């Protein structure tokens, strides 16, 4: 009954809440409960009552009545089975729906629960964070306070120090004044003493103070000394002012020169600016009347004016304003132009690199590769050279000091040999070139000879034919003959001239060889005399002959200045290392001083 009352009480609520209530109350053991409930609800005795009750309930819920429509008022109400079954079915459907809804709600509930948990944990976390940050803030505030405190202290200290410095400066100043004062006092005393000493020493006719000279010598300028008079004084004044004036004039001249140079530079710059800006002028003019165009034309007019009047020679003041204005204008134009270009460049950059750029990069890479290869080769060369040197040294090391000298000679010899070798190589190359040209010339000559032969054969044939031809054609033959002879002459001429034309290259090829042969003898003659400068000089001649660039020869020249001694050169990085040669020492004489002194 209790449950009924419960049900009844809850019927007043909305159906949805009823479902939820049901879900809450009995989720799983529903069928059992229902069974037991029914068993308890309806018994044999109270069927009528339960039916009527159920009917009542159902009608209140909006179901059709369980009873049939009474035919009369007195007639007993009949139970309508169809209605009952319909009702039951409908109830079951409802039940199923409820169960479904219940499930949905359950899952939703679970979801919400988990959401809730999540939110709660989030909340806790945030709270924690808040707490820590609050703590941090407090810490920072504390530190800030401390720092401020420190700062204040430091400020105080600084102020104290400043005061101290001021005080010390004052002390120094006072000490300095005191010191100066004392110094002055002492100096006065000292001056007095000096004065006294002066009187004592100088005024007493000191016989000792004298100059003992054999005879007076003439003045350096040959003139005689002159008396000091007012005139000389005036002359001295004059001379002094003359010197000063000269100096000022010199300086002014220098300044004028500098000014002229600067003006020239300015003028040139101006010209260049105008020339740079004038082609651009057309564009802005085409585009409506932009201000730049007119400005340029103004500038040009100005320039024309300036050029015409040759104002450059005038003093600055008259031109200055004009000049600065025009320059300023042009500068502005240039600046805007450059800015425009910059913009364009940035645009181009945005668009991507040009093909040309890529190509140049490729070139660049190729170049670097080439250079690297070259470096590698050079390194190898150096290595081999070093090895050779080492070998040579190793062989030379065994001997005593004489070997030292010898190995320096060997080194020189080696260097010379190297040079000769390079010369030889060059010669070889030249020879090869020459040979090639010769063979070519020979081939050409052969061809020409062949052609000539053919020509001659044909000519002979013609002549032969002419000689045996008819008489009446003689007059024409003469003409022909002359024509032929002329042509043959020409041929001959060409024959002669062709080899002549061909010769020059061979001659020019030959000439360097000649000279190189001539020079070759120079370094090849070893001058082994004791004078140490000779080999060096000859070496340098050979170096200059080999057309080594001046930068390379420079350190050598420096080295030459100091060839005899054992020295070391640390030349500037980048320049060639100084030439290393260790020559016989000139210091061969005895170290005993040969002075005539006792």
């Amino acid at each position, binding site marked *: 009954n209790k449950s009924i009352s419960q049900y009844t009480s809850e019927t007043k609520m909305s159906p949805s809440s009823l479902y939820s209530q049901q879900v809450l109350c009995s989720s799983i053991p529903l069928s059992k409960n229902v069974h037991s409930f029914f068993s308890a609800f309806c018994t044999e005795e109270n069927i009528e009552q339960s039916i009527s009750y159920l009917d009542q309930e159902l009608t209140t819920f909006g179901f059709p009545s369980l009873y049939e429509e009474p035919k009369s008022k007195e007639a007993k109400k009949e139970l309508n089975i169809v209605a009952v079954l319909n009702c039951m079915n409908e109830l079951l459907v409802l039940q199923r729906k409820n169960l479904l809804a219940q499930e949905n709600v359950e899952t939703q509930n679970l979801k919400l629960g988990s959401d809730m948990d999540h939110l709660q944990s989030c909340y806790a976390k945030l709270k924690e964070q808040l707490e820590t940050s609050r703590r941090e803030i407090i810490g920072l505030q504390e530190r800030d306070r401390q720092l401020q405190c420190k700062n204040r202290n430091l400020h105080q200290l600084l102020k104290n120090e400043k005061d101290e410095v001021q005080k010390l400066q004052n002390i120094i100043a006072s000490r300095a004044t005191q010191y100066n004062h004392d110094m002055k006092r002492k100096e006065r005393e000292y001056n007095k003493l000096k004065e006294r000493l002066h009187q004592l*020493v*100088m005024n007493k006719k000191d016989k000792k103070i004298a*100059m003992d000279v*054999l005879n007076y010598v003439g003045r350096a300028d040959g003139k005689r000394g*002159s008396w000091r008079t007012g005139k000389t004084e005036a002359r*001295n004044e004059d001379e002094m002012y003359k010197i000063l004036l000269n100096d000022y004039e010199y300086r002014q001249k220098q300044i004028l020169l500098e000014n002229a140079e600067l003006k020239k530079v300015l003028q040139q710059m101006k010209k260049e600016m105008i020339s740079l800006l004038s082609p651009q002028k057309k564009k802005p003019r085409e585009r409506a009347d932009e201000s730049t165009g007119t400005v340029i034309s103004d500038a040009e007019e100005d320039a024309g004016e300036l050029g015409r009047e040759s104002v450059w020679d005038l003093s600055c003041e008259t031109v200055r304003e004009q000049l600065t204005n025009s320059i300023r204008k042009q500068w502005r134009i240039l600046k805007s132009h450059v800015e425009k270009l910059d913009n364009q460049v940035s645009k181009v950059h945005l668009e991507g690199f040009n093909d040309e750029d890529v190509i140049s990069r490729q070139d660049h890479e190729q170049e670097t590769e080439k250079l690297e290869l070259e470096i590698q080769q050079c390194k190898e060369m150096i290595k081999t050279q070093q090895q050779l040197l080492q070998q040579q040294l190793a062989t030379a090391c065994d001997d005593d000091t004489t070997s030292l000298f010898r190995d320096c000679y060997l080194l020189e010899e080696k260097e010379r040999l190297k040079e000769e070798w390079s010369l030889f190589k060059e010669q070889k190359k030249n020879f090869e070139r020459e040979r090639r040209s010769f063979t070519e010339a020979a081939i050409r000559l052969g061809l020409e000879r062949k052609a000539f032969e053919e020509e001659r054969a044909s000519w002979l044939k013609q002549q032969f034919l002419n000689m045996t031809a008819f008489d009446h054609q003689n007059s024409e033959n003469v003409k022909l003959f002359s024509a032929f002879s002329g042509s043959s002459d020409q041929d001959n001429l060409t024959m002669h001239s062709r080899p002549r034309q061909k010769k020059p290259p061979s001659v020019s090829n030959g000439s360097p060889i000649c000279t190189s042969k001539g020079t070759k003898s120079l370094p090849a003659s070893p001058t082994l005399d004791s004078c140490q400068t000779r080999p060096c000089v000859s070496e340098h001649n050979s170096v200059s002959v080999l057309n080594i660039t001046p930068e390379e020869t420079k350190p050598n020249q420096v080295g030459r200045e100091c060839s005899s001694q054992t020295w070391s050169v640390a030349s500037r*990085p980048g320049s060639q290392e100084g030439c290393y040669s260790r020559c016989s020492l000139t210091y061969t004489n005895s170290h005993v001083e*040969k002075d005539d002194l006792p």
Partner: protein
Amino acid sequence: MNFSEVFKLSGLLCKFSPDGKYLASCVQYRVVVRDVRTLQILQLYTCLDQVQHMEWSADSLFILCAMYKRGLVQVWSLEQPEWHCKIDEGSAGLVASCWSPDGRHILNTTEFHLRITVWSLCTKSVSYIKYPKACQQGITFTRDGRYLALAERRDCKDYVSIFVCSDWQLLRHFDTDTQDLAGMEWAPNGCVLAVWDTCLEYKMLFYSLDGRLLAAYSAYEWSLGIKSVAWSPSSQFLAVGSYDGKVRLLNHVTWKMTTEFGHPAAISNPKTVVYKEVEKSPPLGLGPLSFPPFRAGTCPLTATSPESKYEVASVPISLQTLKPATDRANPRMGIGMLAFSPDSYFLATRNDNVPNAVWVWDIQKLSLFVVLEQLSPVRSFQWDPQQPRLAICTGASKVYLWSPAGCMSVQVPGEGDFPVLSLCWHSSGDSLALLGKDHFCLCFLETSEGVREALGQRASQT
């Protein structure tokens, strides 16, 4: 590079004549004059006592020898060996003696700087200048020899007197705004006189020839000030080295500072080349700089001291510094030496608390060009009068040469050590006199005909 034999010397008194023909050297009380080319003795003069100062007259005709202890000056003529002149300052004493630029007058400063006596070799006239100031550089002649500027001290004030050298007439006399004038120097063009104050105060004053104050410059206060001063040969710059280890270049237009060269012990600019002198150690293999390899046992000439060479140090480098004793007077700090090259393109300096280094500055670029770090403290350096080439000596038996092309260290040959304490260039720049305590020798840089002649003659003598 060739070396002459070693000659005796005393008191580092060895000087080339201004015309470059002769070389005078002192040995105790003797003065030896040699021909520069042949090194043969041309004249030998005997003085009355040990010579303490020797000076050539500007025309190379006379030699002045001062014996300060005796208060004596003796003058010798090169043309007439029998000619003699003796000046006795008597009880007044003598502390300094010098030629006037005309070579006919001698300026003697008496003891206590009581006066300067101007003795004439032409006439009997004697002039006196009173109140000369005792200071670092109180007498200076213009380069053309026309004027003499003399520092004076009267009534505790500094004055400068400008005399006309031709007749010793006073041209200008003016007081200077200095506490205690320490030195002065004419600009090479002879129109500007630079005057500086004592080291207690940084003060540089510029006076025109007519005594007008052109400008005054002071870089800082309180701490020790100017230590050394040098005009550039073009008169365009005045380099002022001070105790704060900086060189300030003042220009001749505004007389203000153009630039400031600090001398930090750490060099970090990669554009600067640092040459470091290192002792040559026995065979290093075939490094690019150590050729030919030095073998100690096989070279008898250099057995006494180890050879050295220069190496280019990689640039972030710190130089050896000396901590100056601040409780002593004249502390070893600041720029003590500075000199312009004859073409004014370079400036060489030495910072006294980095004593082993010579700094070479490029005046065109106004930047540090090269630093040379020696193994021992630099004693002196001097520019070749003809080209930018710097000779350095450190008291070791080596001479060091630097030029923009590179630098080298040359061992002075000879038995035993020959510590080079000082050096002086011949005016042609072809030779260099290396002065030691008791000896000197000449170093020939160009093998000219004259040298070969000298060598030949000496060979025939011996």
